[in-house]
């Protein structure tokens, strides 16, 4: 808490059901991304790199793996004295019944006691399923500079897509005048990134009122922010420039992986000043065989490539056997493509085997094929 008096809470309870089998057993923040990471590595690494010492992670859906994963705060350097990652699933308390988190604001309300133990001046609310690099310390500086009650990070989206987002209408000073959730006729293209900084004392009071309100959805976007605007509170939009992705579907998860193949891509995972930390794997470097062909690819350690890889992202320990082809695809950790198999426009889930000479996906498919079960070989 010492560094900037700001505590971060990451909302990581969502399922992400449009990711189908990928989230059958794990919550969306635990989904793999970028050759070696899980999505939640991004907000956690951002916290660590921004000098935030204490991070609460609010988990709910399929949380066993996520709980143990984030609890090892050492991975992100969040393990010094007075620093740590706290896993916060719904729990029974002396003065309240056990209840699931009913909304984003409720998840925070149910952990007021936890936050109070650190008595932070500022509370940072983050989403556990977004891919981006951001220095929250800069956002806090802006929050202070504006003398704001709340600051919301926004990103400019194409006007035609604006109706898919929560849109902030701000005046020329950046002060938010109006907030519209998925407006039919958007007045601006400043989309909320679901990243909020609040003054903790003021938010605490609002949350206490919100718990008692039977008509509330207990949601930041639907309830807390509108209430604050009604009360004429000072809400400011903090413009973020850079890569930001909310990967809700298989297509968009695939696309976000493909983004990494561009030279000088915006996310720049190779930036040594802002590393994204993750679990360490004890594997070899990757092996490239004598007849391999690799072009435009992002390949992690532990892979063995003896066939062809083009326009693809290969996660830890994925293998591509001789005469196999992997094109425009994503192979998640330990996926195996056996001899002669051809994988095109597909996302192969972790540990899945594509048998000899099997053909998966096709070059002209509208959607990306998710392969989450073993595909038998063809003799």
């Amino acid at each position: 808490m010492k560094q900037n008096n700001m505590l971060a809470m990451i909302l990581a309870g969502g399922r992400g059901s449009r990711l189908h089998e990928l989230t059958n057993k794990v919550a969306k923040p635990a989904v793999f991304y970028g050759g070696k990471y899980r999505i939640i590595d991004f907000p956690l690494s951002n916290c660590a790199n921004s000098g935030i010492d204490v991070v609460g992670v609010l988990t709910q859906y399929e949380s066993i793996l996520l709980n143990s994963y984030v609890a090892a705060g050492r991975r992100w350097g969040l393990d010094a004295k007075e620093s740590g990652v706290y896993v916060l699933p719904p729990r029974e308390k002396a003065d309240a019944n056990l209840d699931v988190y009913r909304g984003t604001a409720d998840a925070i309300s149910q952990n007021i006691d936890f936050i109070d133990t650190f008595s932070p001046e500022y509370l940072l609310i983050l989403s556990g399923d977004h891919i981006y690099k951001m220095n929250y310390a800069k956002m806090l500086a802006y929050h202070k500079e504006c003398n704001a009650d709340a600051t919301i990070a926004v990103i400019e989206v194409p006007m035609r897509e604006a109706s898919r987002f929560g849109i902030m209408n701000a005046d020329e000073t950046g002060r938010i005048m109006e907030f519209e959730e998925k407006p039919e006729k958007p007045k601006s293209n400043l989309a909320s990134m679901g990243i909020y900084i609040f003054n903790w004392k003021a938010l605490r009071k609002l949350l206490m009122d919100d718990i008692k309100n039977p008509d509330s959805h207990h949601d930041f976007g639907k309830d807390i922010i509108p209430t604050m605007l009604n009360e004429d509170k000072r809400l400011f939009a903090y413009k973020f420039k850079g890569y930001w992705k909310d990967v809700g579907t298989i297509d968009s998860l695939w696309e976000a992986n493909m983004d990494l193949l561009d030279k000088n891509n915006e996310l720049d995972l190779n930036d040594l000043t802002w590393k994204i930390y993750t679990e360490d794997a004890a594997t070899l470097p990757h092996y490239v065989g004598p007849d391999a062909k690799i072009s435009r690819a992002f390949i992690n350690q532990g892979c063995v490539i003896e066939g062809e890889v083009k326009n693809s992202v290969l996660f830890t320990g994925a293998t591509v056997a001789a005469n196999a082809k992997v094109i425009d695809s994503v192979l998640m950790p330990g996926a195996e493509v056996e001899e002669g198999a051809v994988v095109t426009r597909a996302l192969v889930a972790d540990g899945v085997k594509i048998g000899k000479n099997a053909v998966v996906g096709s070059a002209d498919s509208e959607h990306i094929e998710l392969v989450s079960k073993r595909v038998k070989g063809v003799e």
Partner: protein
Amino acid sequence: MSKALGIINFAGKHIWVDGLQSYRPLGALSFLGRYRIIDFPISNMSNSGIDQIQVYVRRKPRSMVEHLGTGRHYNINSKRGKLQVLFSENGVENDVYNTDIAAYLENMKCIEEINCPYVVIAPSYMVYCENYSSLLKTHIESEADITLLYHTVDNAKEAYFNCNILELNRQKGVLSIEQNHGNAKNRNIFMDTYVMKKDLFIELVRKAKKMSSMFTLTDIVKAECGELDIRGVSHRGFFASVTDFKAYYDANISLIDLKTAKSLFDPEWPIYTRTNDSCPTQYFETGSVKSSVVSNGCLVEGTVENSVIGRGCVIKKDAVVKNSVLLPGAMVGAGVHVENYVVDKDAKLIRGKEIVAAPENPGYIKRDDVL
């Protein structure tokens, strides 16, 4: 139950790896892109259930200390286990006295206070996998005083010159330990690995000091061959002794072959190292890579063939890297052709376009150098 203290010894004065060793002790030398040589003996010990490990450093401890840290990445229990980095302070003043025996004597208290009846001593400059727990069992069952590990080779005429060889009788009793003079091709190369009772080890260390201030552990064991029951145990699997420059180059290059690599790396016997949190390696349209081992964090736009590429290397467009070993952070600029070279850490090859050495005599580019 762990019954042995693990000691990782440094390379004696007779071993010198040209170029590379000027900057770091051999154990801290980068190996196969993402490892350092010392990862092998420490992982062997950790996987064998040894969690009291002492690493001795003869000189330049910085990179070693940085790499080892608390030892947590080696899967050593952080409460019950211990990884110590020790060195001989007196030896730094005068290299003649900078022997392993001197270092052991200076740190005798640390050795004595560890409650293990046996010691396993392994070198920091050899690459191999061995289950020390089985080796210890073999040692105890044989009732020998000392057990030595060796590897039988058929090319001792061309390689292993800085190694010792074991002369064995039919019962695997060690008759003598001699330096390899390269006069026979079939030899049992001593892997500088010992198993014995800790009490005997301490006794030998004290005796060595009395006999000569220049004596090493090998010297005293050699002198005791007639007196003690010393047995040899043969090692199988990959073995490389990084005791000269060519050996370093050859060991890296030989592991490019996946079959050879599989004889060293067993999924059930993980080799741990310190993570660098590098992202995966990015290949561009113009890149072409064949028969190579590539670590994370590299940007590949050029051609790589039969090479080992360390973490965070950059290979620019139209660059050609062939039969070479690139240490972490090396950069090969556009149009540069490097062949049969070891390129040390963070070196940049930019202006000199043809950097080619003879295959039998690989070249070396210094650390941080700009060419």
